[in-house]
């Protein structure tokens, strides 16, 4: 009996030691993987933005394609809808995800599409949080002071994916969650009202893109 206890104790101690050694090593590997992923995605984005041989519409399309691959649009969209996700009907959920993807990609590619001459580099602080990695980058544009962007990278089905962007301590998905929630609440809890507002916004964005 005592032997068993001792063996269990030893086993646990050994396990803890190994886990203690392996834990940080695994975290390092995760950080490296996430940083590499951001590095390569960032280079693709910069190449797309600075491609002089194409016009702005084509550049934007390339940016959108990179973003669609790199961002886990579905989980971000569900996070942002928060508690209203469960209150939405399956049709509303489907339509929401479609509209959300379009809004996100259009907004981001319109913004990045204007960053002519942009350069970027991995920043100093890469850190692991509970279930993802924060990768810091520094964005440089001509005639503008450099600014830092943090990318939250999670493993989705074994693939690193972007799940949030943080600028000036402000998380994009938290801010947008508050925005969408506010729209729904001000319309007496109607998810349909949010969908209508999103459709209107996409129309406006499309008109503006054509106006350019």
């Amino acid at each position, binding site marked *: 009996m005592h032997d068993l206890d001792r063996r269990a104790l030893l086993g646990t101690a050994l396990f803890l030691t190994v886990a203690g050694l392996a834990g940080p090593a695994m975290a390092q590997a995760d950080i490296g993987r996430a940083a590499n992923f951001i590095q390569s995605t960032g280079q693709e984005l910069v190449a797309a933005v600075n491609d002089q041989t194409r016009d702005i519409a084509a550049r934007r399309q390339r940016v959108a394609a990179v973003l669609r691959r790199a961002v886990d649009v579905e989980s971000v969209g569900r996070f942002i809808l928060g*508690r209203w996700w469960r209150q939405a009907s399956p049709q509303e959920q489907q339509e929401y995800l479609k509209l959300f993807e379009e809004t996100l990609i259009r*907004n981001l590619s319109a*913004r990045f599409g204007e960053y002519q001459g942009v350069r970027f580099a991995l*920043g*100093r*602080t890469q850190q692991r949080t509970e279930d993802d990695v924060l990768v810091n980058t*520094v964005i440089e544009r001509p*005639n*503008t*002071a*450099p*600014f*830092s962007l943090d990318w939250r990278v999670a493993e989705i089905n074994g693939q690193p994916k972007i799940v949030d962007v943080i600028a*000036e*301590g*402000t*998380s994009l998905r*938290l*801010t*947008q*969650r*508050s*925005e*969408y*929630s*506010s*729209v729904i*609440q*001000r319309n007496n809890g109607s998810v349909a009202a*949010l969908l209508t*507002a*999103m459709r209107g*916004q996409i129309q406006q964005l499309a008109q503006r893109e054509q106006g350019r």
Partner: protein
Amino acid sequence: MRQPIRSRLSRAALAAPLLAAVLLAGCATRPPASDPEALADYQQTNDPAEPTNRRLYAVHQAIDQYALRPVAVGYRAVVPQPVRSGVRNVLGNLRTPVILANDMLQGEPRRAGDTLGRFVINSTLGVAGIFDVAESWFGVRGHAEDYGQTLARWGVGEGPYLFIPVIGPSNPRDLVGFGLGIVSDPLSWFGQGAVVDGLVYGRAGMTVVDTRESLIDTIDDVNRTSLDSYSTLRSAYRQRRAAEISNAGEVAPAAATSTGFGVGTGMDQQRR
């Protein structure tokens, strides 16, 4: 010497009735306990005076559309970038006493040393603070601190969210910090008369213009892409303040003030 302090104190005191008016007028309805998710949402949003805040936000948007933004756009168009940087650096340098006091009140001797060293170097080699040589030659970057952050570090809660026209997003704690910043600034203690008043108001006016200029693109972007810019600003403000208080990275540069949009000035100058 006594008169200017009093007038500045009374200006800070003006905030008190305004605050009371905000708190007493329209309140958002608290969701019933039978809806725990809605209640959690309500508590997390921390905006019990939302209807009043939204009315004040509408007032601000009108002021911004017809006065603040046009002036900021004009300033950007007329004054070349190097001069604007110089103005921003001078404003940041003038904030040294407040930043230094708060570095010390928060028990951060290294940051206090940075602040003091930067002040000495920039005021002399940097020609009265026009050039930030402390950063460009010595690599010592500026940071912001204010009484709102110090109060937070001392455990004072933020209180309900407030939106105040022209000043912007705030809360009672940061508003008190903002007042303390004005009252405790030694630059507002010296002298009196037209010249001193002119300098004091000139500095306040330049701070507003510089701040709004630094925010042109950010706020345009919010107004263009947000379905509800009021809640976007509210969320962004509270997140950013939390990051500043924890000193997680240099979120705000030296020229930033304690509350509202104040932090905007030079907000694109990020840690490296």
